[in-house]
């Protein structure tokens, strides 16, 4: 079974290491010869100090992800980059991030994050990487990439400069920010795009923010999530992958499985640890370990995901913690941690 190859090829070769990269196996329907894999890197937040100096920690996270992605066996057909390549989206940061990514031997499809966007409304990012939303087909699977971090024009235009706007949006907890959305224009595009696709075709939707509502205060949130979900409902098998949250999250809403991917830069606390406000972390999610700040790459983890028969299994390799598998329970029709779903992980209580 291919799953075993991943472990042999990637984990065994780098035993005990932390791979901040997700490998996704897509094994939908037809013959097994049609199976393929893709890797997932996200949220590197490349940050310039000045001139050619960049924050070392964040550089290292991405450099390591790319190196380990190159060593994976079987080779992924392509890589998805999940957004927030840069911290404030300057040309220098995007260039530096892309330079590190250029060592990646596989074709990469990029998702746009808010940190790439709010300085110049994605102009430079787009000039280097192409459209902000698009779709493609690969071996019988329809992939959709969305820009889910749009906000209304009123907010976009109320700032004196792009720097000021980006500065506000770069603060996750800045109360002057604004909730993300996919927006009417893009939803309309999505509707037309999906009209050409058979309902039997497995869908993989890639967004930066979660296409579900978890915590508005930190934009773990997409304002029109329900409207996007409505467009995905007619399809039999739908998998949504998102970045932005820098932590393990998973959920099932109707026919849609949701999985977050890890960040290469730093982990975030769960919203419930902010004691002054309520979050709606999916009840299904058994949380990741509480990060050890003394171990720079902790809680960035590595995971590979196989989307067997259209459903997702996520395998998490976590430093100093038990390996975890979040598999699809076909009886209950939802993702579940195969070991910790009912009992949780006691020594890793978040508070």
């Amino acid at each position, binding site marked *: 079974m291919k799953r075993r190859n991943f472990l042999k090829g990637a984990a065994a070769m780098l035993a005990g290491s932390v791979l901040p990269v997700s490998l996704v196996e897509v094994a939908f329907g037809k013959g097994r010869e049609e199976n393929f894999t893709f890797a997932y890197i996200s949220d590197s937040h490349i940050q310039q100090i000045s001139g050619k100096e960049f924050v070392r920690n964040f550089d290292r996270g991405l450099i390591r992800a790319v190196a380990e992605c190159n060593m994976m066996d079987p080779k992924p057909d392509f890589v998805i980059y999940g957004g927030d390549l840069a911290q404030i989206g300057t040309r220098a940061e995007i260039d530096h991030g892309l330079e590190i990514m250029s060592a990646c031997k596989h074709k990469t499809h990029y998702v746009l994050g808010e940190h790439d966007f709010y300085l110049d409304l994605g102009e430079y990012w787009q000039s280097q990487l192409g459209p902000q939303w698009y779709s493609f087909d690969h071996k019988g699977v329809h992939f959709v990439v969305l820009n889910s971090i749009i906000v209304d024009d009123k907010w976009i235009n109320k700032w004196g400069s792009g720097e000021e706007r980006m500065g506000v949006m770069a*603060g996750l907890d800045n109360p002057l920010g604004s909730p993300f959305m996919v927006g009417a224009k893009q939803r309309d595009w999505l509707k037309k795009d999906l009209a050409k696709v058979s309902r039997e075709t497995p869908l993989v939707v890639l967004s930066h923010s979660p296409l579900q509502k978890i915590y508005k205060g930190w934009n773990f949130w997409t304002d029109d999530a329900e409207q996007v979900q409505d467009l995905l409902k007619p399809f039999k098998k739908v998998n949504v992958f998102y970045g932005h949250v820098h932590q393990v999250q998973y959920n099932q809403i109707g026919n849609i499985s949701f999985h977050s991917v890890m960040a290469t830069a730093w982990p975030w*606390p769960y919203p419930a640890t902010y*004691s002054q406000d309520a979050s709606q972390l999916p009840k299904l999610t058994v949380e990741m370990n509480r990060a050890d700040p003394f171990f720079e790459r902790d809680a960035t983890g590595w995971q590979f995901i196989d989307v067997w028969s259209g459903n997702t299994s996520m395998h998490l390799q976590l430093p100093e913690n038990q390996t975890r598998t979040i598999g699809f329970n076909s009886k209950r029709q939802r993702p579940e941690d195969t070991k910790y779903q009912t009992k949780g992980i006691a020594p890793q209580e978040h508070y």
Partner: protein
Amino acid sequence: MKIQLALSLILTGLLLVVAGNGSADEFTKQDLKLWQDEYMVVVKEGRKVFTDPSLGNNGVVCAQCHPNGANTHPETYPKFQKQLGRVTQLWEMVNWCIRNPMEGESLDADDPSMTAILTYIAHERRGKKMAPGKH
């Protein structure tokens, strides 16, 4: 001698001015408001320091990893910090962050910026029970 006398007179005078607003055991609403306002000024200052790219040397800010001061657990300090192998206070951990992820220089324990950071962190965690030593 003269200077000392003069100083003590000045100090006495100051005390009279401070204490002169009312009798000692009464907190008026006005007092409480004043003190709360003073506290909130420092909370606000703390938020400023918490998001100040010049606190460290690489532009990384506290709030980048600790939105709303989350995962700082002020109610659990002092506690045995397993990575350091001894009981530490929160300000030592703040300095650890300034030196490491932020690549900067430690603040004095009584530096007004340190007080502001600790005040902000505690404020974002208000209402939580004290739990010294908790992990």
